């Protein structure tokens, strides 16, 4: 048998990125998961049940909303894909409902998750409670502090939140801890990974569950304007909301796909989360992708004012879309994101997540280079209630009154 030509391996790469860089002990559950994707996920029964859950429980389709005030000011049509209106307040729930349903069909009683901003943890806890599964969430100790309300939400939903004290005490360490736990408890547990990162088949699984965003954008855009959008813009940490928004447009070359990373404070040599713009190829958490790292291959701490973007790597499919030039990846800094956050609050009455504020900030910063009359879709991946503590601190630090 030519091990270099197994279907598993061929399917596991996006161009030169991706793969299955995990301990041998994790190969059996990954193979089992891939098999479940091939058999259970494509079945009519699973697809019908998921479609109903997305409609009646999650609240899909989420609206594609034209911002009247900002559109007038900018001179082009600014649409928001309102993932913030999903149950639990973010796009994350599309993925967790799918993976939780798959877990139920696979006959495993426990859902395991890692979380940074807490949105994926809340979405996993929600799906687990709804489907009668136990839920365990690893979260960096730093994130536990800065996302206290989400921790409480997870606990109210019956999940056990485990603070991770090792390393930088953020998302990457929570991911390490979750992978370690999964190695030991794989027989009863499904690891509900929260982004399009990790070993094959996770980047494909999560993308397929988030692709509903782009499919809806396409249908809604055609219905509302009669044409495809000119730009689809999304923030990129691991990249699940972005790949979800982009995926259905990859073949539509007239549509510009823009991923927006977090540049941190924006100062030279500051910690950031811009792994495509500032990273180099390397292996972390099961995949070869673009990473923030030292020349010796040690993973660097990341930073963003938006906890959900605070990760030193990116999904391998994004690294490939960057490589191939199909999508453009750029970055905005914390300050620009906060500015965009304020603008959307004041101009449209919508409080966006700080993650999504990065995508919006790119549009605002580049208003002069976007042709008048363009149709620009920003994927508003989540709502900002969870970030009020962070915003409050920033306002206090500036000496302004909230």
């Amino acid at each position, binding site marked *: 048998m030519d091990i270099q030509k197994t279907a598993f391996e061929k399917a596991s790469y996006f161009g030169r990125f991706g793969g*299955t860089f995990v301990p041998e*002990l994790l190969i*059996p559950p990954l193979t089992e998961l891939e098999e479940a994707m091939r058999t259970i996920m494509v079945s009519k029964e699973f697809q019908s049940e998921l479609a109903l859950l997305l409609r009646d429980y999650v609240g899909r389709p989420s609206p594609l909303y034209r911002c009247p005030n900002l559109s007038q000011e900018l001179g082009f049509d600014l649409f928001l894909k309102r993932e913030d209106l999903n149950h639990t307040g973010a796009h994350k729930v599309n993925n967790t409902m799918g993976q939780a349903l798959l877990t139920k069909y696979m006959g495993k009683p426990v859902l395991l998750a890692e979380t940074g901003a807490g949105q994926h943890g809340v979405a996993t806890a929600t799906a687990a409670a709804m489907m009668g599964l136990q839920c365990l969430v690893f979260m960096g100790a730093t994130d536990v502090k800065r996302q206290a309300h989400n921790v409480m939400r997870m606990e109210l939903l019956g999940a056990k939140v485990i603070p991770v004290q090792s390393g930088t005490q953020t998302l990457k360490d929570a991911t390490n801890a979750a992978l370690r736990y999964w*190695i*030991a408890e794989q027989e009863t547990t499904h690891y509900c990974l929260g982004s399009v990162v990790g070993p094959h088949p996770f980047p494909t699984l999560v993308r397929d569950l988030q692709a509903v965003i782009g499919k809806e954008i396409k249908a809604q855009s055609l219905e509302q304007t009669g044409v495809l959008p000119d730009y689809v813009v999304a923030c990129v940490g691991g990249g699940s909301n972005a790949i979800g928004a982009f995926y259905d447009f990859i073949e539509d070359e007239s549509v510009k796909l823009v991923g927006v990373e977090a540049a941190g404070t924006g100062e030279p040599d500051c910690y950031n989360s811009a792994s495509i713009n500032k990273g180099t190829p390397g292996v*972390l958490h099961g995949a070869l992708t673009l990473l923030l790292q030292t020349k010796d291959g*040690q993973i660097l701490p990341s930073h963003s004012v938006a906890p959900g973007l605070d990760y030193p790597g990116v999904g391998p499919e994004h690294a490939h879309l960057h490589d191939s030039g199909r999508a453009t990846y750029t970055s905005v800094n914390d300050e620009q994101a906060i500015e965009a956050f304020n603008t959307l609050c004041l101009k449209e009455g919508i409080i966006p997540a700080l993650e999504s504020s990065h995508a919006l900030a790119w549009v605002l910063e580049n208003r002069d280079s976007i042709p008048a009359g363009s149709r620009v879709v920003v994927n508003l991946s989540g709502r900002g209630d969870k970030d009020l503590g962070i915003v409050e601190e920033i306002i206090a630090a500036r000496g302004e009154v909230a």
Partner: protein
Amino acid sequence: MAQSRLQQRIKAANDAGRKALIPFLPGGYPDQERFWEEITELDKGGADVIEIGVPFSDPVADGPVVEQASLACIESGVCLEWIIQELTRHRDAIGAEIVLMGYMNPFYQYGLKRFAQDAARAGVAGIIIPDVPLEEAAAFRAELDAVGIDLIALIGLNTPRERMEQYAAVSSGFVYLVSVLGITGARDTLPDKVRGKLAEAREVFDLPLALGFGIKSPEQLDAFGDHLDAVVFGSALIQHIRGGESAASFMERWR
């Protein structure tokens, strides 16, 4: 196929009526100077093969003991380049064979071809990379094969026989059976499944079998008799050194 240096070394220990001893210590632990003293003690204390850990910031297969030791080494400036340079300097004074154990990214950044050539010059006999399973190993194995360094197969209690056969077709040196479905770290007891998996591996592989993960005392091996040829211990050794003891005193009970 001719036996590799690692195979020969383990067989020599077995011919002498004992299991080969493979202690593990992260490169540069407990500090850069004492590390080579401890390696020398391990060597004099009866180690047949010494496994040197290449520290990595995100070691997913390791428990807290190895992780903390590795992070301390990174803090002190240890990197793969340091290990290879220092090994080149000390290699002639060490009788045991040397295996490097580390995660893929530092090797990838070093450059696989460059690493293979430099490691061969430094006298490295084998490499263990926990996050490189069969699917991802071919390119690295080709570079290592070219310079005569073994890429050690890691198999688990959950590795099916068919997959072990695929490993057997390409592996050399020895086979490392991970004794627990979990991460590194000393444990009081080993799972019942270990014996059966060792017996199965013995049928599939024409290579020595080493048992590692979770092992802290020679008594734990009594149950396995001739089912294994070598034993790897790391966390228990690190804890021993961290407690102010020497590598030499740790080795005494294993001889």
